[in-house]
């Protein structure tokens, strides 16, 4: 039977596991194990050798991220751990599932991560629109506090941790870890220059680790069952499981926990049931709004950071956004670029000015007022806002669906311009 450490114990009624219910599934045993017999270094080593990689989209090895934090005697304190629960990527809906259904899995993962990096204070950085997750987390935090799992001398050990919930006031850029740190400090969420990396100088100038919710939810199962077990869950060389999803005109949109390396076809055809009656598959964004389109010919690729990267896109959040043959690709890209233009923090010029310009060009094309030379201008923008040209990854991410749409759905752009109207709209 396939093992699903993140979702196996979720309740069918859709409510969150209480502390007692979580404990009945073996919850907090990893914390007991760590605090009663493992050094901080041992926990870190277990996660490193499990090959856990960041589930927020970038795929950076979690153990390596943690190992850059100064530890031991002479390390600066307080140190901070932050769970990034600012899930705002269009088309991403995986962290919400974990927050609403198994909040203690996150809390236990945070306790273990904080233990490993010797953090003193932890925050859950939650987006303000996540009202139901906020309710679930508040209840779980109260339960954990009452049970002595948060606070001083946790489970009678020397380990102490304060854990707070920060509710954000809403900006996509807060998902970028240095922007998130500015937001946590009560400032505008503009990204910071790196170096210094947050592990050296993060929140309030102290060593800080920011990890995605799903990443942290993997930590307790790894510590409990060991790195070898975790590595065996993935397919081929891949480690662990991943929450994959599909949305759009598919038969059964949803989220599924599957081995890392599962093929896109299995997610799309078996889990999501393929396209709805009367709709054909044009393409899909494999991992949220800031990833390049892929085509039906890519369905047999395994969902791994490398294989999706080699195909010219990114696995990102692992949540497919499916484009059907009755939806206008230009309209879809316009919707995405409107979002990115709105959410640019305004810090650097290419992004602040380039994204609204991109949006205007797409608005004109979609309205049937585009000019043939606009396509070359859009391609120039993809270069001007590509990797390395902007302060952070927001604008390069915004260019990914655009540059791939210009390549794969070129006919659609050209028809809009030639016919002076959107061909998908009823006359």
């Amino acid at each position, binding site marked *: 039977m396939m093992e699903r450490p993140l979702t196996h114990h979720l309740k069918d009624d859709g409510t969150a596991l209480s502390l007692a219910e979580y404990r009945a599934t073996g919850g907090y045993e990893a914390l007991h194990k760590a605090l009663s017999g493992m050094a901080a270094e041992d926990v870190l080593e277990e996660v490193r050798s499990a090959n856990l990689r960041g589930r927020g989209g970038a795929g950076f090895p979690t153990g390596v991220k943690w190992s850059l934090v100064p530890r031991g005697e002479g390390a600066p304190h307080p140190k901070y751990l932050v769970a990034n629960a600012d899930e705002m990527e269009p088309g991403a809906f995986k962290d919400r599932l974990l927050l609403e259904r198994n909040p203690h899995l996150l809390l236990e993962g945070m306790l273990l991560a904080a233990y490993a990096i010797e953090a003193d204070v932890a925050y859950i950085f939650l987006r303000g629109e*996540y009202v139901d997750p906020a309710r679930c987390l508040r209840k779980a935090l109260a339960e954990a506090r009452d049970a002595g799992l948060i606070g001083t001398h946790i489970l009678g050990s020397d380990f102490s941790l304060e854990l707070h919930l920060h509710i954000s*006031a809403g900006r996509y850029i807060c998902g970028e870890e240095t922007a998130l740190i500015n937001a946590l400090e009560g400032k*505008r969420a503009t990204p910071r220059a790196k170096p210094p990396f947050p592990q050296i100088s993060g929140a309030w100038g102290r060593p800080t680790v920011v990890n995605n919710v799903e990443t942290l939810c993997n930590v307790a199962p790894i510590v409990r069952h060991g790195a070898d077990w975790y590595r065996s869950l993935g397919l081929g060389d891949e480690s662990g499981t991943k929450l994959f999803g599909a949305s759009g005109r598919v038969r059964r949109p949803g989220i599924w926990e599957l081995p890392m390396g599962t093929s896109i076809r299995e997610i799309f055809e078996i889990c999501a049931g393929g396209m709805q009656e009367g709709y054909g598959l044009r393409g899909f964004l494999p991992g949220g709004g800031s990833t390049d389109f892929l085509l039906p010919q890519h369905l047999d690729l395994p969902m791994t950071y490398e294989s999706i990267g080699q195909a010219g896109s990114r696995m990102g959040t692992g949540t497919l956004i499916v484009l059907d043959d009755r*939806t206008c690709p230009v309209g879809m890209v316009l919707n995405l670029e409107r979002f990115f233009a709105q959410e640019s923090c305004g810090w650097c010029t290419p992004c602040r000015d380039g994204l609204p310009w991109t949006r205007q060009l797409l608005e004109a094309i979609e309205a049937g007022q585009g000019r043939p030379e606009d396509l070359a201008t859009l391609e120039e923008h993809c270069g001007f806002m590509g990797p390395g040209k902007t302060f952070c990854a927001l604008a390069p991410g915004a260019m990914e669906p655009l540059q791939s749409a210009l390549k794969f759905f070129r006919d659609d752009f050209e028809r809009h311009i030639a016919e002076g109207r959107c061909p998908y709209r009823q006359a």
Partner: protein
Amino acid sequence: MAEVFARDTGWSQVYLSDEERAEIEREAECYPRREGLCIEALRIVQRHRGWVSDHSLAAIADYLNVDAAEVESVATFYNLIYRRPVGRRVILLCNSVTCWMLGCETLRTRIQAELGIDFGETSADGEFTLLPVTCLGDCDHAPAALIGDRHHHDLDPDRIVALLRQSREDE
């Protein structure tokens, strides 16, 4: 306005309610520095008063002992801080990509017909304000929206109208 923007006026003591101040102090325990409370303070005052007026802004600046321009720069940065009055309930209609593909524009049109408001507008009776919102993370049940602090999904035009009428009767 100039006088209320001046520092150290004691304006916050006059303006902020005991409850607002107590809530800000509770949040203060979670952060190492008081100026870091800016977003929490804005959220707390907005929860009590519906939006953040210039007077509220000045009071927060005074209370946290930070510059009012600093608080303004933060307040205007975040999508969920309202610097203009809003209705008793804010409708946050998701218009991100999946909800767009699955018909959020028809919801918007229907809300317009029902309440006479488009994005950024408040109904004449002061009951509802309609705003777009970024992906609510419910793409497998699109389209989705928040009405006040209630999350709704699998919406269609009839259903959102029913929810709006029902939420009028709540409380």
